[in-house]
């Protein structure tokens, strides 16, 4: 069988090449996971084209990873992945965008998918990546008073004593 028949992403790449031209993203693949690595500046452009012209109407997953100290890692420290799903053809694509310290910032996908709302808030909560254009970027799982970002690799497993120093409100004070 030729590559054109077996490659489920052929149509998508054709559309992407027509609309965006070359040089916007690079690809990598592991098993059936095809990843598009895109710079933060062109992320929304790529996602918009994928959503509106390639039929990826569904944002299945959004999450972050911290690669600090990852053996042989040469790309950005943080990477955020967007798993997109085409509901009609069940084709899946992973878009990955990288950001670095200090002040990691990415444009928000909230205008494209409202489902990105809490998923982006969680990435902000855990990694401190700011999503510009998100209407309500607050901490979601950790308390508001928490200052660190717990899923970063330089944050220790047992914490930095926040739990013991947590402000307690006694019955008399309340």
């Amino acid at each position, binding site marked *: 069988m030729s590559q054109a028949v077996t490659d489920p992403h052929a149509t998508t790449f054709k559309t992407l090449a027509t609309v965006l031209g070359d040089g916007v993203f690079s690809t990598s693949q*592991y*098993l059936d*996971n095809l990843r598009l690595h895109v710079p933060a500046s062109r992320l929304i452009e790529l996602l918009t084209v994928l959503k509106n012209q390639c039929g990826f*109407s*569904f*944002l*299945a*997953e959004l*999450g*972050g*990873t*911290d*690669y600090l100290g*990852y*053996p*042989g890692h040469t790309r950005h420290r943080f990477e955020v*992945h967007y*798993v997109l*799903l085409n*509901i009609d053809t*069940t084709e*899946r694509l*992973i878009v990955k965008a990288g950001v670095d310290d200090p002040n990691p910032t990415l444009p928000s996908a909230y205008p494209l*998918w*409202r*489902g*990105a*709302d*809490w*998923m982006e808030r*969680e990435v902000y909560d*855990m990694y401190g990546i700011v999503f510009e254009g998100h209407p309500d970027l607050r*901490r*979601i*799982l*950790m*308390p508001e008073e928490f200052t660190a970002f*717990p*899923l970063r690799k330089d944050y220790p*497993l047992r914490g930095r004593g926040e739990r013991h120093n947590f402000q307690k409100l006694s019955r008399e004070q309340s």
Partner: protein
Amino acid sequence: MPANLLDEPEIGEESKQPYLWTLNFGPQHPATHTTLRLVLDIDGERIVKATPYIGYLHSGFEKLGEHLNFNQYVTIVDRKNYISPPMNEVAWHHAVEKLLGIELTKRCQYIRIIIAELSRISDHLLCTGAAALDLGAFTAFLFAFNQRELIYDIYEEMSGYRFHPGYTRVGGVMQDFNDRVIQRVRTVLQSLPKALADMEKLLFRNRIFLDRMRGVGVLTREDAINFSCTGPLARASGVTIDLRKDAPYLAYNDFDFTVPYATEGDCYARFQVRMEEIHQSMGIVKKALENLPSGPVNVPIAEKFPMPDKGTTYNSMEGLIQHFELIMPNRGFETPREEIYAAVEGPNGELGYYLVTDGSQIAWRTRTRPPSYIHFQVFPHMIKDHLIADIVAVLGSLNIIAAELDR
């Protein structure tokens, strides 16, 4: 019923403010079942705005996943959606095995399908039963929970634990199904149809139940897609996605089943979809049990990653070496330096893992795609303009498991 149909005095935008009350709902409330908190802005009985505050049960499961090896972490994934623990285990090891390139034996695939479908049944029984309970139909809940007890008996027999079995291992399961497990699965298959029929008789023509479910919490197809909804929630809104059909994993290709869906998108549609899924899952379990292949359940230890069972460890040199390599903290086999997103169809929707490995036995990153978390963000949208009493109906139909929500 949406309350905006009621007569509403016309008030200007600025003078409307004093009329709004703030009501705190939860974190401890009988209808939330677990620890959820909502802050409601209400205009009389009508909800103008609902703001969920979550994180009360946050226990850093994903951080723990970066410090436990692939077999140890199975005890943690159990505690995510504790209503259907085997499904979490199947999902976790599905991702691990896909990344390591391990092909399961046919018998193991069937066993995993059986435990996955049993946990789907168990989850849907809880959801439908508790939804009825919250709306005052106590008996249906008891019928559902009787069956859940029988499913817990299966977990107990197969693994030794009732609630958090921790049954799967990389490349296999903890121990093979014995005759008593199979007998107990048969018991469930025999008694379940009667219980379902009883529930359906109690609920499908129950006027109070129908009035409180129909037309409440409507989610349109567009919104379901836009909000990343999956599972029964999406299928009740007409989005017919099911990973068992779309991207068959394990041996789901061998089974003939239908994916129930509805187009109304209200609480009753979700309830019906779940009830019908129980019937479909029963069919799958029955077929899998009839055709359960013989042969070894675990992949051979030459594959390196699977944990050898006790007999192999104590009676063969290879088994002992393998066990030593896997158990000792500074030993172990090399994993690929790769990352993968792999998902299974959980009872609540797509249950996926984004797994990154760095060559060691311990994952670099174990991101969970928790369906409860993603579905709960729809709640403020669905509950808008409804009455306070509708909160329990909508919450019950979403089946939010707070341990999975907060992780």
